[in-house]
């Protein structure tokens, strides 16, 4: 594991040094992101103007969920950006070279690109999170910090696993991968609101199949001391990191299975 991490950073350095120079558009991208965040939060605000609360959750509590999702998604995208190259590697057969190395193809591919411009997005997520905690009157002690960090960690792991699953589908067809990514981004939209407000079938998908709802909803219920209308077992609130890691393990299994289906190319 330590060796893998060291190789990851060595490769990361080698790749990013070459990229830095032609990214003068950073500033514009950051600006665009900032506007998008503002629009998103205004969207949430408009909903509250009309309804006062969403499923018993106040405006700032929902902004907190928005912040969580944005940060976790941001970090996951940052770590997984190398996976975006997989469709191209599979189509051209360049994936071959990652299979003849004595390290995991993931360690080799993940550092392939590092979308630094997404850092801007992360910062906005952090601002949303901190402001929402302040406005909601949460005074972060050890317990609260632990919940916030473990939720972020779990949610990030789940998003990363979703990206990995999406990339794995390219070993069969590119279209199936695109179809799957709809779930990933759908999941991102879902976890911006408490899952209790959704239809049961939809809710159950995002609680128990693709657990983005599970890892963001239950710990937040404890954090804000909310009434939990689903009557789920109480231990759900404490096992989110475990659920996230299990989901990642399943995603890795699927990835290994997918590699066995890799067909390379005829020439």
């Amino acid at each position, binding site marked *: 594991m330590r*060796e893998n991490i*060291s*190789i990851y950073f*060595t*490769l990361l350095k*080698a790749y990013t040094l*070459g990229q830095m120079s032609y990214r003068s558009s950073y500033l514009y991208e950051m600006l665009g992101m900032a506007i998008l965040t503002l629009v998103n939060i205004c969207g949430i605000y408009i909903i509250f103007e009309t309804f006062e609360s969403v499923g018993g959750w106040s405006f700032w509590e929902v902004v907190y969920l928005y912040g969580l999702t944005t940060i976790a998604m941001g970090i996951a995208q940052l770590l997984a950006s190398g996976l975006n190259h997989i469709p191209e590697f599979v189509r051209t*057969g*360049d994936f*071959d*070279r990652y*299979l*003849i*190395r*004595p*390290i*995991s193809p993931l360690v*080799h591919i993940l550092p392939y690109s590092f979308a630094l411009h997404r850092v801007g997005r992360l910062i906005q997520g952090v601002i949303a999170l901190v402001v929402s905690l302040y406005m909601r009157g949460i005074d972060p002690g050890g317990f609260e910090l632990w919940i916030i960090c473990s939720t972020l960690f779990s949610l990030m792991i789940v998003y990363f696993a979703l990206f990995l699953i999406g990339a794995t589908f390219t070993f069969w*067809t590119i*279209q*199936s991968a695109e*179809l799957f990514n709809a779930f990933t981004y759908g999941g991102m939209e879902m976890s911006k609101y408490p899952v209790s407000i959704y239809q049961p079938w939809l809710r159950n998908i995002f609680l128990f199949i693709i657990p983005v709802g599970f890892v963001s909803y239950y710990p937040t219920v404890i954090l804000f001391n909310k009434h939990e209308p689903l009557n789920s077992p109480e231990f759900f609130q404490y096992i989110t990191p475990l659920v996230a890691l299990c989901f990642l393990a399943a995603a890795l299994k699927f990835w290994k299975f997918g590699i*066995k*289906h*890799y*067909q*390379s190319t*005829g*020439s």
Partner: protein
Amino acid sequence: MIKVSGLEKEFKIMTHKSGMVGATKNLFSRKHTTVKAVADVNFEIQRGECVGYLGPNGAGKSTTIKMLTGILVPTRGSISVNGITPFENRKENAKQIGVVFGQRTQLWWDLPPIESFDLLGKIYKVPSSKLKKNIDNFIDILDLEKFLHTPVRKLSLGQKMRCELAAALLHDPEILYLDEPTIGLDVMAKDSIRQFLKKINEEDKVTILLTTHDLDDVESLCKRVMVIDNGKLIHDDSIASLKGRFGNYKNLELDLENDEEVHLPVGCELVRRDGKKIMVEFNTDIIKAPELITNLAGKHSLIDLSVHERPIEEVIKRIYQTEV
């Protein structure tokens, strides 16, 4: 060292429908045709051998190599490389093999070769003193000094191929797989690569499996040749026996004084005629060269003549044709 038995690979090719509706159907349909790229291939390769792997386009050579290296999972059959099954234990297998695909680079496109070598050293966990020794050695014998600091994308094909070879051998693999390593190279470049391969095979006892369409590669490097066609192994023996496979044939080239009709004795066949120049192929089991020459010299007035071994190209062409 390498043991392959009953090896098969089938590719499923989806039948694609066009248009929006077709594309949606493609997503769910399981309709496909099957191409059998490799069919029941068996062979063994011993340590230190250098084996040529020949066959026409689409015969299944690259597919075999991809299964041996662990890139593809066989549909049926087994492979054991030093006791390791490549596709089940890719990482272990990777440590003991070096791979060069002539059509594809193993180096980092934007980095100079020396940096690629360093990265590979890290990836293969080659101790740094060993790595330095190997790099220096390859710089020396492959003459890499001049372009060591030029990004790979700016190198010529020949320069790149020399770097590829060095890159594939940095971790001292026991086995080297080469898929068309001389493709697109000029005579000089081909020659230097052949000499290098001969050296590492003879001195360092690296086992080599080589596919190529250039039979000079095979003749100068390999004692043993395997020929595959349509996925089936149709020959696996020494070069000499490959040549002798259709009896012992030789070629006789004649320059006639007059443009006249030639009557050949039994055991001979006219291969080609270009005015007064004639190429005859004869079977030495039926008629010996002196006998044939005496025969022809008696009937025609000859200006010049020469006798050749049948070139290996001709032999291979025959094998491909008879198997179709």
